[in-house]
């Protein structure tokens, strides 16, 4: 199990740089300026971390995602919106191959993460999923203690030293803005936490494997408005260090948290662009109808 690290997927040089410099809370200072600069002229920001090229995914005969081509950029938040059953979750789950759990799923076209096609036969699923973390619609902490939940991923990677694990647990809980609330009962069962805390725990758990990308599948739909607010705040903090893709039914949420928005309908990508453009000046009729509430 300790040889997991040797199979590291293709990592871009500047991503590696980032891995080394991450961890400090003060670091994003310099980053923020780039983000700010990026926001003023965002399209030329940075390169794509996820790249779909005429990607389709079928469940048996049913179309899940049809011929989607889009680039998702590094260190920004991209939201995917659209009516129920439009394939947004399917697209999200294709990125870390969670659709493999459905036996009849079949992919066509290309879906690249950091330059590697994830539907390549030789893909190392373990390394892919540890570097493309996922947060689900319903909080799904393991029925273990808070500590063991966070330490789960690092332990899979073969980290056994107590001090190292302690350090990771604290760092991840801090990043997920949960440390202050649980620091005194790390031994408590994760199931005893409230729904919002459980979801932040799941985010912390995903951070513990040092991912580069975080996929969030309607992370707030099972939470109340206050918990939702905290998660959104957290997404705002994480955007400096992680590329986040979030699927949401809540258009205000998409407008609040994301830099770019993709609108999908019937498995197809209808429109993709900067969030403010998509929401204020949609190019497509269907996008306009959806965001103004005329359909969906």
């Amino acid at each position: 199990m300790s040889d997991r690290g040797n199979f590291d997927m293709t990592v871009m040089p500047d991503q590696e740089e980032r891995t080394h410099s991450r961890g400090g809370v003060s670091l994003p200072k310099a980053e923020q300026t780039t983000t700010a600069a990026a926001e003023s002229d965002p399209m030329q920001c940075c390169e794509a971390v996820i790249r779909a090229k005429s990607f389709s995914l079928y469940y048996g005969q049913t179309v899940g995602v049809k011929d989607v081509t889009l680039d998702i950029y590094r260190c920004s938040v991209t939201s995917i919106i659209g009516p129920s059953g439009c394939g947004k979750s399917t697209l999200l789950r294709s990125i870390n191959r969670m659709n493999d759990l459905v036996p009849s799923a079949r992919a066509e076209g290309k879906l690249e993460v950091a330059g590697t096609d994830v539907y390549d036969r030789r893909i190392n699923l373990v390394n892919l999923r540890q570097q493309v973390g996922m947060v689900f619609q319903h909080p799904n902490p393991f029925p273990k203690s808070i500590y063991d939940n966070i330490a789960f991923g690092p332990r899979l990677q073969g980290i056994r030293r107590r001090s190292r694990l302690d350090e990771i647990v604290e760092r991840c809980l801090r990043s997920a803005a949960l440390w202050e609330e649980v620091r005194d009962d790390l031994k408590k069962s994760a199931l005893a936490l409230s729904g919002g805390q459980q979801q932040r725990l799941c985010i912390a758990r995903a951070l513990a494997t040092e991912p580069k990308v975080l996929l969030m599948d309607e992370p707030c739909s099972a939470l109340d408005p206050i918990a939702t607010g905290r998660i959104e705040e957290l997404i705002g903090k994480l955007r400096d260090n992680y590329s986040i893709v979030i699927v949401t039914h809540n258009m205000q949420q998409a407008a609040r948290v994301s830099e770019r928005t993709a609108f999908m309908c019937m498995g197809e990508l209808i429109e993709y662009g900067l969030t403010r453009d998509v929401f204020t000046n949609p190019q497509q009729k269907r996008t306009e109808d959806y965001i103004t509430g005329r359909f969906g």
Partner: protein
Amino acid sequence: MPRNELTMTEGSESAAAAGFDRSLLLTPGRDLAGYLGRGIGWVLLTTVACASVMAVMLIFVFIFKEAWPFLTGGRVMEFFGSTAWYPARDDEFGALSLFAGSAYATAGATLIAGLLGVSAAVFLSDIVPFRIRQILKPVVEILAAIPSVAYGFFALLVVAPWMQDTLGFTTGTNILNVTVMLSIMAVPTVVSIAEDALTAVGRNLREGAYAMGCTRAETLVKVVIPAAHSGIIAAVILGMMRAIGETMLVWMASGNAAQVPSPWWDLSQSVRTVTATIAGEMGETERGGVHYHALFALGLLLLTITFGLNLVSEYFLRRTRRRQGTGG
């Protein structure tokens, strides 16, 4: 005018005005009939329910009453301290050899049935495609319906001669035979309940594990099985209870020699269990004699153990249900 009356009359009038042509209230006769019917139903069901509970309680009381003379007869030390069980010939009641027999058979069967059953349950819940599981699981559950005498035949006529001829044991009815047959009999119970527990773990936990980069084996060992551990423990205990309480099969397959095997690891020797002793000797004993009461003492002990195990398994099953109830 009292307010109720007003609303009543106004209500029926406005009901008619709104087009409700059938009365919304019961006639006095139907109201009374309904009231009486509910009362009678309650009394009947309560009686039946109480009778079944009472029957179980009375069995306890009866066995305890019949065991009491032996327990107070000053022979308890011998009962729990000696291995010599010669009730008819020498008036000796050392039940330790019987306990040893039961312990061997039960422990062996629990071990084998637990390992086989839990592996099979994991296989059914997580490895085979769902459609095949839908066929296989009922088949396994049907195995639980085979009467134990049938297993006894098999043990006596197939396994025993095979052990004598091929393995060279002096007797084919021995610990190994009874253990293997008991475990085969207990496996369906374990599989059925453990599989339920594993299936109940739910897709979201499995997805969580895969998303953390677990392989399928890691998902099963580190997440699914720990999450289902209460149900799995309950399943193994229920399998164990089948083995402890089984009489006919052990009567046919164990050889019925009241002895503690020596050396202790020699599984080719015959033993005799508590259940087989009661079944075998009750017919020959004199009613009201020491032997008679001693057999009841054995029965009481058996009842206490199975009752205790039942409580433990119930506790674990409840824990599983509660956990699923609160989500997670």
